[in-house]
């Protein structure tokens, strides 16, 4: 057995040991600091039949995302290739090396480092089938090396992989990146040297080995293997503290997410998992309208997660965000960036004493047999929308109770977005009380912000629908038969309705009943925020208008007659532009009754 | 130009004065009144009568709404009766508030003769005295202002810093009751109060014109008398100090006994409360009455003038002017008795 030992393996062994200890400690801490609700979800998934779909999801997600990087590839195939080649390639190198070792020793007992340093220790590896093994290993190494070379090019010029910008890294990450990049060339050189001396290499290592002078190989073999081992050691010891921690965290995240865990209003162990699962790929920078239009390049998800994880100051990153959720949709790891940002916004330890007592006196309305209609705060400034909805209700003979005809209690979402969690709950309590007391059939709302709030944050006993859903249903049922016009209309997906609630088809369906849809390049989940989102308070109007202009350029590319939207906020934002005609879908329908 | 300036002058009698002392001045700055009498009698050779039976004018009580108007009128009438009985016609009240009260009563009688008659009757019924309205009411500062050049002849010192040779920088403060109640009653009226500035300029000093020059010292009887309201009183003084601080005054001179006292004592209070003094070295800005200023320049002994009774000590100023004084005699009283040493303030240097 002693022939399978050499001092150069020590760095590797120590590094690996340290790595596993650190990771075990971290995982333990994260899992134990899940909050009660999250733990309950985990047990509910593990102890019921839900466990089977959960397990299936875990396996599927890990293969898809951790190894194959399907989401990144879908977003950008060159970047996907880079990530996949390194992740999958390395994984296969390890697995294949392991199997190769098993095969060679006929399943007999062997030492754990043998799979890694196989070529060095098994020098008589030149019999028939071994050539195939060697070729396979070389192919995998070549695969990884191709990824590494793309990574190196990308660090110099990001457009190589079709990404506008590289993530700005900490110096620590940069050091570690070099050690990662060195591992595979080192392995190549080490194996080539051994191949030169023993002839046990595959097509690549043997090819290079044959070119090396024997004296060089003799002198350099052990130093190269030592360097390889040392690179591995450095990388393993440091990486739990670097962005590469995502390699091990992502599977863990997938496990817990599949078991039904989601972000809470306060940071928990799950938040730590999400923070560590970010690979800082920079896809969130790519889609961010603030970066694109305003050159604000320090607030994107990647920077927020980085700074929160490492405890760096991040006031700007916390505050300056439109909360348009573009990054959440784009994130290949599926990190709930917006939720984490809300947690951070709440960290001003905002006082919670309630001063909304003045709302207590509001009486509900007996709305049995009616629907409740909630226009929302903003709709007071867009009477065109509410008046159209009233006209439509009357036209189809629907009895309704407009909850906020005169005064509106805000749905609470704007407060929540700014981190005022307790105050938002207070407003929700008041509104929920009004709605439940009224015994209305269901709730229709015109504002996607309220809609998302009512739907996700309220837990109402009645169904909540947005007016576009309502109109779509009426048209499907044939209750509403608007006249078709020759208008060409570009539809703007409001963030809160589209990315927020996945309502993409109903508005289009309704619009097609009265007009022709113009082609819009970036639409549905890629729709550009109108810039005036309530999620942001850091931007002044001039800057918001720049984002809006980008949205308008996108919408107007096909020269539509007008722009339609389904959000009073977006409508107001577009109305500010003197060269734009914008209408709410409800208005377009009401005009054609 | 001169013609217009003449419109801002007031009539001040030449001689034969009836002197009325001030409650505050004779209590807190007794040397001042003695010095004034000495100046008039010895330096200027005037006739000034110091009545032994005099009493308060009720000014503090009157302005605090404690003493009714008719009472004040009668009390004022009695003082005038003392003057009439002594055979004088020119009334000189040491206190600025008394000056204001007398001017006000005389003015009121002028417009309401029935009040004058009623007052005469009450005074006669109660004391058997009769009185004449003074021909001239002038404040002692008016008189010193009038004879400032005569006094200058006799002065040993000037308001000049002997180390730099430059004029001393002086903040002058005029009592509100001097010319703000009846603007025409003061030299330069309320618009260009010149009574103290005239002395300072004549005697070699430089008057500082700072933003809050016309602001009240903060005495305000009703504010000061109620302890809870004293915050307003001191806030006024503080406002003045903050305003004059950048001009680095060498000292403050005032013609009202109340102002002199409050500008002096509040410096101690502010120093205790906020550890803040308004000069560079932490001693505070010395506050003198105009009699003390004149007395010093005439070479009177600072301790006879009563400067040791001030809160802010005057030694640094005396050194600047070059006035000789004996530090050992500071706490030796006029009678030769050794006075008890005052307690040292916490923050203000002495």
């Amino acid at each position, binding site marked *: 057995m002693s022939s399978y030992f050499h001092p150069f393996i020590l760095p590797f062994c120590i590094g690996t040991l340290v790595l596993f200890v650190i990771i075990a400690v971290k995982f333990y801490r994260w899992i134990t600091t899940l909050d009660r609700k999250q733990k309950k979800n985990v047990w509910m998934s593990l102890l019921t039949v839900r466990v089977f779909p959960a397990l299936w999801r875990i396996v599927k997600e890990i293969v898809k995302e951790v190894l194959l990087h399907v989401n990144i590839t879908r977003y950008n195939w060159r970047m996907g290739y880079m990530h996949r080649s390194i992740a999958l390639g390395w994984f296969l190198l390890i697995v294949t090396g392991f199997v190769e070792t098993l095969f060679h020793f006929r399943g007999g007992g062997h030492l754990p480092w043998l799979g890694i340093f196989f070529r060095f220790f098994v020098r008589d590896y030149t019999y028939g089938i071994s050539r195939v093994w060697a070729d396979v290993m070389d192919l995998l190494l070549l695969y990884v090396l191709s990824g590494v070379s793309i990574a190196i090019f990308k660090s110099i010029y990001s457009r190589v992989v079709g990404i506008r910008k590289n993530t700005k890294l900490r110096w620590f990450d940069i050091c570690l990146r070099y050690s990662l990049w060195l591992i595979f060339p080192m392995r190549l050189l080490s194996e080539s040297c051994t191949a030169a001396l023993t002839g046990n290499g595959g097509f690549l290592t043997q090819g290079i080995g044959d070119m090396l002078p024997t004296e060089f190989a003799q002198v350099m073999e052990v130093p190269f293997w030592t360097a390889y081992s040392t690179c591995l050691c450095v990388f393993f010891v440091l990486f739990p503290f670097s962005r590469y921690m995502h390699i091990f965290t992502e599977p863990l995240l997938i496990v817990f997410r599949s078991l039904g865990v989601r972000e809470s209003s306060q940071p928990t162990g799950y938040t730590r998992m999400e923070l560590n699962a970010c690979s800082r790929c920079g896809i969130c920078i790519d889609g961010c309208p603030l970066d694109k239009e305003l050159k604000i390049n320090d607030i994107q998800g990647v920077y927020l997660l980085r700074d929160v994880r490492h405890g760096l100051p991040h006031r700007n990153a916390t505050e300056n965000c439109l909360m348009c959720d573009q990054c959440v949709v784009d994130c290949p790891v599926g990190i709930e960036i917006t939720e984490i940002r809300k947690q951070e916004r709440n960290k001003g330890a905002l006082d919670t004493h309630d001063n909304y007592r003045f709302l207590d006196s509001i009486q509900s309305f007996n709305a049995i047999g009616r629907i409740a209609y909630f226009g929302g705060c903003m709709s*007071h*400034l*867009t*009477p*065109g929308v509410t*008046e159209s909805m009233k006209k439509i209700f009357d036209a189809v003979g629907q009895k309704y109770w407009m909850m906020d005809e*005169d005064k509106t209690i805000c749905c609470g979402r704007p407060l929540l977005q700014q981190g005022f969690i307790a105050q938002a709950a207070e407003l929700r309590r008041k509104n929920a009380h009004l709605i439940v007391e009224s015994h209305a059939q269901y709730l229709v709302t015109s504002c996607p912000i309220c809609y998302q709030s009512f739907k996700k944050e309220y837990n109402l006993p009645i169904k909540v629908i947005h007016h576009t859903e309502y109109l779509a249903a009426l048209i499907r049922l044939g209750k509403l038969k608007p006249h078709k016009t020759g208008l060409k209309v570009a539809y703007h997906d409001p963030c809160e309705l589209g990315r927020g609630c996945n309502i993409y088809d109903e508005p289009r369906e309704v619009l097609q009943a009265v007009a022709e849809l113009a082609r819009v390049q970036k639409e549905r989940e890629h729709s550009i925020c109108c810039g005036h989102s309530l999620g942001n308070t850091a931007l002044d*109007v001039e800057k918001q208008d720049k984002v809006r202009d980008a949205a308008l350029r996108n919408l107007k590319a096909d020269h539509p007659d007008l722009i339609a939207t389904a959000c009073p906020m977006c*409508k*107001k934002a577009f*109305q*500010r*532009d*003197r060269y734009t005609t914008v209408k709410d879908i409800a208005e377009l329908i009401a005009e054609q009754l | 130009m001169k013609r217009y300036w003449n419109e801002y002058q007031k009539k001040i009698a030449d001689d034969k004065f009836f002197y009325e002392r001030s409650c505050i001045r004779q209590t807190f700055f007794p040397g001042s009144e003695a010095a004034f009498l000495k100046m008039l009698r010895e330096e200027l050779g005037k006739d000034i009568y110091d009545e032994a039976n005099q009493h308060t004018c009720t000014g503090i009580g009157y302005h605090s709404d404690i003493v009714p108007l008719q009472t004040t009128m009668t009390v004022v009438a009695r003082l005038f009766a003392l003057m009439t009985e002594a055979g004088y016609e020119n009334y000189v009240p040491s206190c600025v508030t008394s000056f204001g009260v007398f001017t006000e009563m005389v003015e009121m009688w002028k417009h309401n003769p029935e009040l004058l008659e009623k007052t005469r009757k009450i005074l006669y019924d109660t004391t058997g005295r009769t009185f004449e309205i003074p021909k001239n009411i002038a404040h002692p500062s008016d008189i010193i202002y009038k004879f400032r050049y005569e006094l200058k002849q006799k002065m040993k010192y000037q308001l000049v810093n002997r180390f730099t040779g430059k004029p001393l920088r002086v903040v002058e403060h005029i009592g509100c009751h001097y010319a703000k109640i009846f603007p025409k009653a003061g030299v330069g009226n309320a618009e260009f109060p010149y009574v103290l500035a005239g002395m300072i300029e004549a005697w070699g000093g430089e008057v500082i014109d700072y933003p809050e020059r016309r602001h009240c010292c903060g005495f305000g009887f009703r504010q000061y008398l109620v302890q809870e309201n004293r915050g307003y009183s001191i806030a006024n003084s503080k406002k003045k100090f903050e305003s004059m601080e950048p001009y680095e005054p060498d000292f403050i001179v005032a013609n009202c006994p109340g102002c002199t006292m409050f500008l002096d004592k509040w410096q101690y209070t502010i120093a205790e409360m906020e550890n803040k003094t308004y000069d560079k070295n932490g001693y505070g800005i010395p506050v003198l009455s105009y009699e003390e200023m004149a007395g010093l320049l005439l070479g009177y002994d600072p301790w006879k003038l009563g400067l040791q009774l001030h809160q802010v000590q005057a030694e640094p100023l005396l050194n600047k002017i070059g006035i000789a004084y004996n530090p050992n005699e500071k706490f030796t009283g006029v009678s030769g008795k050794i006075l008890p040493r005052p307690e040292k303030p916490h923050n203000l240097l002495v």
Partner: protein
Amino acid sequence: MDGKIISIQVAIIGGGPAGIEAASILSRYGVQVSLFEGESKWAHNIGNKFKLFPDFSSADELVQTLSQKIVENQIPAYLSTKIVALEKQKNAWVLTDEQGRSYVADTVLLATGYDIFDAKRKEELGYGIYNGVMTSVDLEAMLKTGKITNVLGEQPQCVTFLQCVGSRDEKIGNHYCSKVCCVTAVKQAIEVKKMSPQTDVFVFYMDLRMWGQGFEELYREAQEKYSIRFVRGRISEAASTFDDRVQIKAEDTLVGQPLKMSTDLLVLMVGMEASCGTKKLAACCGIDGEYGFALSKQPHLADNQTAQRGLFVAGACKRPMSISDAINDARAAATEIVEYLKIVPANKK
């Protein structure tokens, strides 16, 4: 283009007060001018008005007098001839109208005036949504009928004016002050009061800018004699009530209290914007300034000249302007043009 080319010495685009005044003065100087107006009437913006501030003189009479000047001076005048393009060719300007006819002129005076702000863009005020909301232009038309009525055709109990609709508002991109609305509101408020003395009249303003002769006096008279209430506060939103009145929300900023009231009529004092013609023609020859208005060369000494030689501007195409200012400006422009023609010799013909 049908090939027919008409050659002119000075072409004046815009038959409003500025255009007509400049044309009549130039023709009196013996300059050969032609006057083009896109609408079918002369000075149609004035024609839409009832009476004029500050003297309550008749708007129709002014239009009459202006039209008379065209006749008296025998000015070749083209009504319903909308000039849509303006182009410099060598030393001449080529004008093209909607029908494709071309005109060649040595010199051009742009007097294309203003359009009123489209109040529908301020959706929260409910113009076009609530029946009781009207613009100041609509009110002039109603005043012309000699009777003030609410939605139901009755005498209104309350009429409310709101200043600065479409001006001084970054929300619609017009940061400038429209200048004439303040005094117009005062004038209209008085007229409403004269026709219907029982009606309560309110004027909501942010600042009242009574810049002209007699304006301040008119404001004072409105307060004193007509009891018109001036409230310093901006109306933020309007809603309709069950009886088809308009409910408005504002803050009386001088009292510091929110104010909610209903009114029969809400009159929006719509500001001036660069007219379509102004925007188009100014952009054609590169003299478009902010907000689409025409840009003069220099505000003090060359306010009628432009960056283009031989192209002059007058009146409300430059900035919001009252009628009298526009007329004065036109006279100044005429003087400039006469000077210009003297130094530029007739180089052809």
